């Protein structure tokens, strides 16, 4: 990645688009402190990504392509584990299960769930952390219409609480209405950064497809 | 003449003197005969090996603490030399043991501990080589260098107490079980090998620095 510079204010949603291998996931993982920048730096709500990595992790939740769940544990147990690891042992697991529509399968092992259900579980694990920075990497995979609405609900909830959301996705049409700004990447470099209002649907499609 | 070359010259000189004294000037042992001369190579080898691993430990701690590449180069070089001299110690020990005690190997505590040391530090080098990311490899090797060094005394005593069958060390604190002329030869050899080690360490560390692209932060 090179020359990526931006400032994301609170209460806003950033849409990151670009073709495969453009660096979308790398950017999100850098913000999540899963990767260290070799050059340059960043901060999340005032905490440096490298020096204050732990403070960043308190504020951040990252839902990536890897599940982060345990096949042999039930949905409920997975969620309870995530809550405990986030130091919220009293989090109302049942309420969260209900919110993401997983109550019917609460006591089934994750092994038997469909990919959409697993994605909902991953979203629930992030949501219960009440993050101030929510990072979603291709969140719509396997989700039905209700699942997509769930992502929108999460996004709205996070921004309403004063946080921000960064969504990297190919399915930019879903986020267009919620996004405040867009960052288009190609081969690790930005080709477009700006408020979403300035860009037309055609621009976004072109950027997402990498034809720029 | 640079400091490094000077050091090398001193090492060669000392080795020459020590070799002369060990092989010719010092007397043969009453019991072991001429074979005692192998001791003048074996003991310094073992001493240098332990010295090398002590340096590895210190350099590893410093590297993990400060993360300066120079410490890693030092640790790497010291580990390599340590493995070399440990191998030599085991070899000379074996060669010495055969005519004197009739066996190539005795399950003596120090030999077993030295063999364990050899394995631990060889593995540190392996880990370095088998890591995809050289920085991570350096970090992991440092961890092994630290754990290994701290463990060796415990390994040593557990091996000693497990099978109590060994020759008491010749230079025990407060008592000298070795005749003065032989002691001189031994001390000279120790000094010569130590200086040689220092020279090789310096040489290898410079090489490591060059290999890494000459970065010295």
């Amino acid at each position, binding site marked *: 990645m090179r020359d990526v510079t931006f400032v994301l204010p609170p209460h806003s949603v950033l849409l990151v688009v670009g073709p495969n291998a453009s660096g979308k996931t790398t950017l999100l993982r850098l913000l999540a402190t899963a*990767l260290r920048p070799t050059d340059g730096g960043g901060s999340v709500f005032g905490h440096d990504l490298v020096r204050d990595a732990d403070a960043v992790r308190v504020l951040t939740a990252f839902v990536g392509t890897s599940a982060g769940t345990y096949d*042999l544990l039930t949905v409920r147990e997975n969620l309870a584990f995530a809550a405990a*690891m986030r*130091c919220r042992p009293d989090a109302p697991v049942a309420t969260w299960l209900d919110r993401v529509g997983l109550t019917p399968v609460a006591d089934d092992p994750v092994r038997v769930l469909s990919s959409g259900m697993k994605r909902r579980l991953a979203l629930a694990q992030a949501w219960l952390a009440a993050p101030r920075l929510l990072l979603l990497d291709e969140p719509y995979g396997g989700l039905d219409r209700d699942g997509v609405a769930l992502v929108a609900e999460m996004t709205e909830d996070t921004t309403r609480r004063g946080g921000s959301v960064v969504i990297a996705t190919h399915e930019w049409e879903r986020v267009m209405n919620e996004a405040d700004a867009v960052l288009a990447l190609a081969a690790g470099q930005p080709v477009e950064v700006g408020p979403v209002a300035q860009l037309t649907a055609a621009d976004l499609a072109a950027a997402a497809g990498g034809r720029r | 003449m640079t400091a490094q070359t000077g050091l090398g010259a001193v090492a060669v000189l000392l080795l020459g003197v020590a070799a002369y004294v060990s092989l010719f000037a010092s007397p043969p042992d009453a019991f072991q005969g001429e074979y005692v001369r192998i001791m003048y190579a074996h003991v310094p080898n073992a001493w240098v090996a332990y010295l090398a691993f002590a340096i590895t430990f210190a350099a590893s701690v410093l590297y993990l603490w400060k993360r300066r590449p120079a410490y890693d180069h030092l640790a790497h070089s010291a580990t390599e030399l340590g493995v070399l001299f440990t191998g030599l110690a085991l070899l000379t020990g074996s060669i010495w043991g055969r005519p004197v005690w009739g066996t190539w190997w005795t399950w003596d505590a120090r030999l077993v501990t030295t063999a364990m040391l050899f394995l631990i530090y060889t593995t540190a080098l392996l880990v370095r080589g*088998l890591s995809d990311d050289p920085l*991570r490899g350096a970090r992991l090797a440092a961890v092994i260098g630290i*754990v290994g060094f701290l463990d060796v005394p415990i*390994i040593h005593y*557990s091996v000693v107490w497990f099978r109590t069958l060994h020759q008491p060390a010749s230079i025990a604190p407060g008592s000298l079980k070795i005749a003065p002329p032989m002691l001189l030869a031994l001390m000279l050899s120790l000094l010569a090998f130590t200086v040689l080690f220092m020279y090789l360490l310096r040489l290898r560390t410079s090489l490591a620095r060059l290999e890494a692209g000459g970065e010295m932060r």
Partner: protein
Amino acid sequence: MNGFLRAAAVARKDLRVEWRGRQTITATGMVALLMILLLGFVVGSEPARAAAILWVAMGFAAVLGIPRVTQGEVDQQALETLLLYPGSREHLFWGKCAALTVMLSALLVALLVLLGVLFGVDVWDHGGALVGVGVLGIVGLSVIGTLLAALVLHVRGRELLMPLLLLPLALPVVLGCVRLTEAILTGTAAGLWPAVLVSFDVVSVLVCPILFEVVMDEV
């Protein structure tokens, strides 16, 4: 306070996953059984040999079981998520170490029973002492093992490295447990061996968690 909570959550999770899958305990148990049978047959099944064979088998079983501590996370693609939870990674260390200790202790109990049957040694009367000594050794094995499990995670040739690293480093545990087990079974003095095991445990406990954080530095 939070640390204890997180460590306990990790331990509970590891044990629960293990209970439902029984992968580690099966692999280690089978290997230990095989080693005991093999050694018992080849080296001799006199009661005097029992302690040594037991602990050599435990050592090799540990070599196979310990990588599971971290490999399990990688297989589930859960490692990154685990490392990104806020809080010190030392908590992860203690949770996993505790779970490993429980698993190896369970294995020990099973092997002691086997020993009683196959070697004709009286494990029943001395059961408490044997398990006590065993756990003292297992704690040391688990502490250093958890560190090594993290260390070999990103190195090629993991399976080869684990025995090369664990067995020399944990040699005092094996030697100490052999002598202490023998002492209990024959009713002789324990000598300095408890001190050896305790020193090993103390040094490992002081050093390994810190080094674990260094090793798990990057995801």
